[in-house]
């Protein structure tokens, strides 16, 4: 029986200034190596859940065990360090720092996390090799790509670079927030394939959040946010995010 990568129990959260709860999750867990698809309409609390999982926000009550550590008990700085060490994040778009090269973007997590740096060194010998290997695995191995300013890349290419960055140093948990929503169908398909392949290779767990249910068939488990979130009414969180 694989260990849970994260286990949420009795977590509640509400936005400041709002009386009602945004999230109320009595119990929810994800197992190691699982590829989980969470869907829900916008405003159902997806972003809030991700902020909690990534340790950006702290729940009002309850426990958030991630990799055996109750991150809701950690300090702000402690959660930041935890995120840097164990979690790779991919967003819908604008993932890259515009003034850094592709390689430098991929290496960013290694600047802030010693653990990720050491793991990348251990797997490939040196950081540059780790970054180029990941880039070639996501199909961005050509030199002309790597020299290009990131702003010149297509959205699909940017998402591939973002995936390589999330994977460097093999973090245990990859959280992807609508990473394919800006891509066309072909690009979506190839992006998902490479993401699955790489997640498997590095033994990571994938939490994939999307409103697009056409993708769900490829995942190990599919969860509707409304199933785990017991708030009485769906809320509009867009403005507050």
């Amino acid at each position: 029986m694989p260990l849970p990568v994260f286990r949420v129990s009795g977590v509640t959260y509400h936005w400041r200034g709002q009386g009602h709860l945004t999230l109320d999750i009595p119990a929810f867990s994800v197992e190691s190596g699982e590829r989980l698809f969470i869907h829900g309409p916008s405003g159902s609390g997806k972003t809030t859940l991700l902020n909690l999982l990534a340790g950006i926000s702290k729940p009002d009550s309850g426990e958030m065990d991630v990799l055996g550590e109750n991150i809701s008990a950690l300090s702000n700085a402690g959660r930041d360090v935890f995120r840097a060490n164990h979690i790779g994040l991919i967003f819908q778009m604008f993932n890259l720092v515009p003034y850094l090269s592709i390689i430098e973007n991929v290496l960013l997590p290694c600047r802030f996390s010693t653990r990720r740096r050491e793991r990348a060194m251990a797997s490939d010998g040196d950081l540059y090799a780790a970054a180029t290997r990941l880039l070639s695995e996501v199909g961005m191995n050509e030199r002309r790509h790597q020299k290009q300013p990131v702003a010149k890349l297509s959205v699909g290419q940017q998402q591939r670079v973002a995936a390589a960055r999330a994977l460097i140093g093999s973090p245990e948990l990859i959280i992807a927030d609508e990473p394919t929503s800006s891509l066309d169908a072909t690009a979506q398909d190839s992006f998902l394939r490479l993401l699955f392949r790489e997640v498997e290779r590095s033994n990571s767990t994938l939490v994939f959040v999307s409103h697009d249910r056409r993708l769900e068939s490829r995942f190990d488990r599919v969860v509707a946010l409304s199933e785990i979130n017991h708030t009485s009414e769906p809320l509009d969180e867009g403005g507050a995010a």
Partner: protein
Amino acid sequence: MNKWPILALALRSLANRKLTAGLTLFALAVSMMLVLGVEKVRHEAKASFANTISSTDLIVGARSGSIQLLLYSVFRIGNATNNISWKSYNNIAGRPGVAWTVPLSLGDSHRGFRVIGTTTDYFKHYRYGRKRNLTFSSGKPFDDLFDAVVGWDVANALGYKMGDPMVVSHGLGRQGFKTHKDKPFRIAGVLTKTGTPVDRSVHISLEAIEAIHVDWKSGARVPGLQTSTDRVRQMDLKPRTITAVLVGTDSRFGAFGLMRSINEYPGEPLLAILPGVALQELWGLMGTVELTLSVISLFVVFAGLLGMVTMMLAGLNERRRELAILRSVGARPRHLFALLVSEAAALSIGSAMLGLALLYVALLIAQPILDTQFGLFLEITAPNKRDQLILGLLIGAGILAGTFPAWRACRQALADGLVVRV
């Protein structure tokens, strides 16, 4: 990986905003140059001012204000309202405790440069800076009646060499149409540069002053009178009046008593001053200007820093995604704080370097102009301790100013979380 990852990021980020960052840097550099420049000019002016005359214990002239006396006798600015009689001069020179005297007779000019009638004691006793003697770059003190010794700037500006002839104008006009052209002089010596008004003076003997005025009365040539130079040489050219006297005493303490007794001299109203005291008084008059300049330059720096803070704050909104990305890859708020402060530090240090470079360019351009127009000789030297301290303080102020946008960036990043929807 870079040893200073945050600093490297800050530099890349600034490079990404070349135009705004460059303009901010330039504005800050100009303001820093201004502070350094004002400080430099202030310092040098004060030093060159205090160095104009030394070793002279008393300056004596007709009774007027002490600053006026100092101005015309030492700085050769303005005019004496009255002269001292030769008799009074001899009285002073003969007093006990007086080691030496140098009489000065002013009132004529040569192409914009003051002509000083004096004795050869002038070259012996006049001291400037730290008791430095006047020295000759060529020639020697005047010997013949129509010999002249010119200061370095005079020789330079008018291209005079030893043996060249020159004509003294009557009065102080630059284009003196009333000239003493019937009595031409010959350059007998050129003094080395001193950085004092001596450089802009023409020195002739007291007798020569008398000689060129033989045919003159009340500032005008007496019609029909033209005494030949040969004839003049035969005449008694003992001066009847002089303008001021520089006095050296045997002991500094004696100077006070001497000053008091000269001020109470019954023969005619005289004024004796201590040059050091008068110099301080004069500098005190300029204190307001000095302070104003310093305050203005500090305000310019303040405006420059304000510009930098404005640029950084304005940039924060468009950098929300950038900061959110950095947080998502593990940057903590203190990293973001360090990033913004590093940017401010890089801008400040860059500005300080550029400002220093601009200062030296400005000094190279301004040096000859200030020297010839205002007699202020700015020495171009490597930045001294004082300059380094100022630069350090300015950089410190820049970094301090950067903490405000840095703090805002942290707050904003914390409020934004990971997903920025702009």
